[in-house]
């Protein structure tokens, strides 16, 4: 199920590719900090942004196959030996792609929510790990259910992002750091994008609005990141 508008075809791919690059950049820098400090929170933060970038990459690949005939024919030629001559397994693989896209994005937001809670050693504590395991189960369940109706995916993403924004607001009140406030704004923009996607079934035009808001969020993240490491 693709919600895009005809005039917007292709532009969303560019927007998501930019989001993918920004998420990869933050994941790589967090991994670098992990290699220096050997503290697990940086490893998990890197993993979180890697999951976000993986999701965006899958979206770019699957959307390309829908928009462009050449990509679709190429994908068909590659997939035929796997799907069978009648492509009887194509729906299964199509749903598996969607599942992976949703599970990785929700998993990424979930990890960012846990890490942004500012509690030392939180990921080493057993009870918090069990809490995480429960959330991971729910994320997988929602990703499966959302294959039938994508609204659930965007709604869950919006709930997780609301919690992330709230954590960054609390962090900003604690440290008064301008960069923290910019990161809060970045996640707020991505959250507004997700909220626009929630109503896609009723107002298809919101697809462009959601994409622009999401892009603005990733660009704000990039701007803050560049300010920090310059």
């Amino acid at each position: 199920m693709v919600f895009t508008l005809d005039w917007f075809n292709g532009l969303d791919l560019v927007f998501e590719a930019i989001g993918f690059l920004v998420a990869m950049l933050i994941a790589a820098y967090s991994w670098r900090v992990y290699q220096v400090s050997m503290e697990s929170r940086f490893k998990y933060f890197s993993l979180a942004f890697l999951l976000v970038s993986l999701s965006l990459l899958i979206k770019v690949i699957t959307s390309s196959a829908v928009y462009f005939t050449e990509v679709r024919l190429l994908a068909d030629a590659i997939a035929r030996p796997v799907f069978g001559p009648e492509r009887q397994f194509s729906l299964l693989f199509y749903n598996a792609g969607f599942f992976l896209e949703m599970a990785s994005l929700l998993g990424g937001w979930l990890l960012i929510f846990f890490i942004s809670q500012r509690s030392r050693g939180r990921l080493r504590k057993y009870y918090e790990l069990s809490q995480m395991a429960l959330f991971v189960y729910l994320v997988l369940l929602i990703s499966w259910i959302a294959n039938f109706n994508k609204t659930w995916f965007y709604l869950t993403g919006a709930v997780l992002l609301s919690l992330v924004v709230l954590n960054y607001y609390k962090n900003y009140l604690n440290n008064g750091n301008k960069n923290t406030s910019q990161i809060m704004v970045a996640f707020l923009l991505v959250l507004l994008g997700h909220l626009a996607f929630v109503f896609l079934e009723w107002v298809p035009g919101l697809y462009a609005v959601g994409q622009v808001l999401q892009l603005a969020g990733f660009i704000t993240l990039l701007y803050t990141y560049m300010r920090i490491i310059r």
Partner: protein
Amino acid sequence: MGSRRSRLELIFDILLAIQNKGGRIKPTHLMYKSNLSHKLLNSYLEELIGKELVLIQEEQVKKKQAPNKMVVITEKGLGFLAEFRRMREFTDAFGL
């Protein structure tokens, strides 16, 4: 009471203490400046020497006395200090 310093913060504090003393400092002074135990400081120093961020120099003050040991920050160490500042900014900004 302040919260426990992370490993990254400890390394940063050690390198900063050396830089603030003009790039060279006595191990005992470093121990007080970085607020670390003798054992912990030695284990961190070993690691920093291994990574070529600091080096130990022996300095002859008086002819009949044993030479003084000095901890000296290297060019790589100064570069890392700048990088650490960025990492700390990243850590603070992202609430890590």
